[in-house]
């Protein structure tokens, strides 16, 4: 897979809630192109704005579904509605699932949208990940880096703010 944009979603000041952003940060530290990596807080309008012009998008978000912390769920949202489990459990209000479904309703969805949810332990106030989530984040970074998940540009992605 070769994503044009990876968006990490969360609040890094809320512990595990920043898991998705942490994946993106670590990919950046591994030399992945910053233009293909975005960190957002999960607000829907910003997500719709961020992926304008991108055809293949991966969203990485924290979730709380009652599964063991560190569980990773994957979902291809391209042609199927975001499942209840991800809708329920994203920790971001009118956020990721809303952004995807709103974009679908408005015909603004990129050609391909995938979502990875990382089950978190607790969104406590303060930075830092709990051990299970830390392991999941690192595993995901290794996997995405190994797949060279966002290496080769196929078309320019609209930079933030444009």
């Amino acid at each position: 897979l070769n994503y044009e944009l990876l968006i990490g979603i969360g609040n890094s000041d809320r512990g595990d809630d920043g898991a998705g952003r942490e994946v993106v940060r670590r990919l950046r530290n591994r030399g992945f192109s910053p233009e293909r990596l975005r960190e957002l807080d999960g607000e829907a309008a910003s997500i719709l704005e961020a992926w304008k012009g991108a055809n293949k998008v991966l969203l990485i978000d924290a979730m709380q579904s009652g599964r063991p912390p560190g569980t990773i769920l994957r979902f291809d949202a391209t042609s199927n509605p975001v499942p209840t489990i991800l809708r329920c459990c994203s920790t971001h209000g009118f956020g990721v699932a809303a952004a995807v479904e709103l974009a679908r309703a408005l015909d603004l969805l990129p050609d391909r949208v995938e979502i990875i949810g990382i089950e978190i332990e607790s969104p406590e106030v303060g930075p830092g990940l709990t051990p299970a989530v830390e392991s999941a984040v690192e595993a995901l970074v290794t996997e995405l880096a190994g797949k060279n998940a966002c290496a080769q540009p196929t078309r320019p992605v609209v930079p933030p703010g444009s």
Partner: protein
Amino acid sequence: MSVAKTKKSSSKPGTRTIRTEVLSRVEGEGGLYVKIANGEVADVQLKIFEPPRFFEAFLRGRSYEEAPDITARICGICPVAYQMCAVQSMEAAFGATVTPEIRALRRLLYCGEWIESHTLHIVFLHAPDFLGYPDGIAMARDHRELVLQALHIKKSGNELMTVVGGREIHPINVRVGGFYRAPAASEFTEVRAKLETAREYAAKAVRFAAGLPFPDFERDYEFVALRHPEEYPITEGRLVSSGGLDIDVADYERHFVEEHVRHSNALHSILRGRGPYHVGPLARFNLNYDRLPGALQEMAASAGLQPGCRNPFKSILVRAIELLFACEEAIRLIDEYRRPDPPAVPVEPREASGCAITEAPRGILYHRYQLDESGAILEAKIVPPTSQNQKTIEADLRELVGRNLEMQAVELTPLCEQAVRNYDPCISCATHFLKFELERN
């Protein structure tokens, strides 16, 4: 943050329980428990589970300079409100006065937050209630133009925040005394153009909101808001109420007290000797109607909105008026912009205490800090608008359910949720993770 999870169940014969696990479409995770017994409303509780006042403890021992950025993290929707209260509290404590240019730039930044927050609430969170849609997504299919326009308005607010605040969420450019860097006038060119369009769309949003079906419901409230000698209040003013209160913000704690309630980890605020009160757009509008530009007063009138409005469901219409006001005010402030130079005034820490109140999108936010001679925080007190409205929300629900006892749960539950959203409760400010329950027997 909010989680959309609804569960309906029925238990014992003769008893019906409707339970919404988590109240969706409020900022933060919120919920409510309503119990009907023997044909009467037996109990209404807005429940809150977050460890209370974490941030107040977290701030202790930190430098005054850190308060704006730390408190901004309490909420992703109204970080500017927290920053503005923090910096103005510190300046009050240290006897610093900012220049008119800095003050105007702060007001401009705050307009960005009103634009973002009000747009989100009006179109995506609250309008679906009025039109009978389960959420903003379902509504978007039928109201594509409105939703696309709302996205544009919101984006113009985001961009204003980026130009002034350094980034669109959790601005990093705000400091005690002013800003780290003041934008050059030329940096506003693009966002000003977007705001012009946003203004047109906001005027359409007012007309849209005016056409919504408002439940016939009024209550007597004591409205509380800031009041400024000249401006529609955002960053400063005296604190006034419809009951005749007119105080300096420094006297806030002499008149308002917080009570701990068993069903909630948050503190509920009351006006001493008088009880619950109402903060937010409806309070601001009713107490500051004469501070709105004439054209907006006319627009409000033609939308069927008069000062003295006591129907909380019309808060969506007031929010739309305020959204239009914020767009126009932002344009005015950009046109009159004089770059603050230097971008901040010097601040000398001293042993003191200082407080401030600003008008967050959902109502007054109060901060007070006790500082030592080095500027380290000894004590912090933060009273968010949502905890000030909680008792009023409960009272609204008690009344609303009481008037609609014969209504089936399938109708009553969404009506209750709609009534809660009249206050745009930002539960993440006051709380975290909440549930909704309606119990009837």
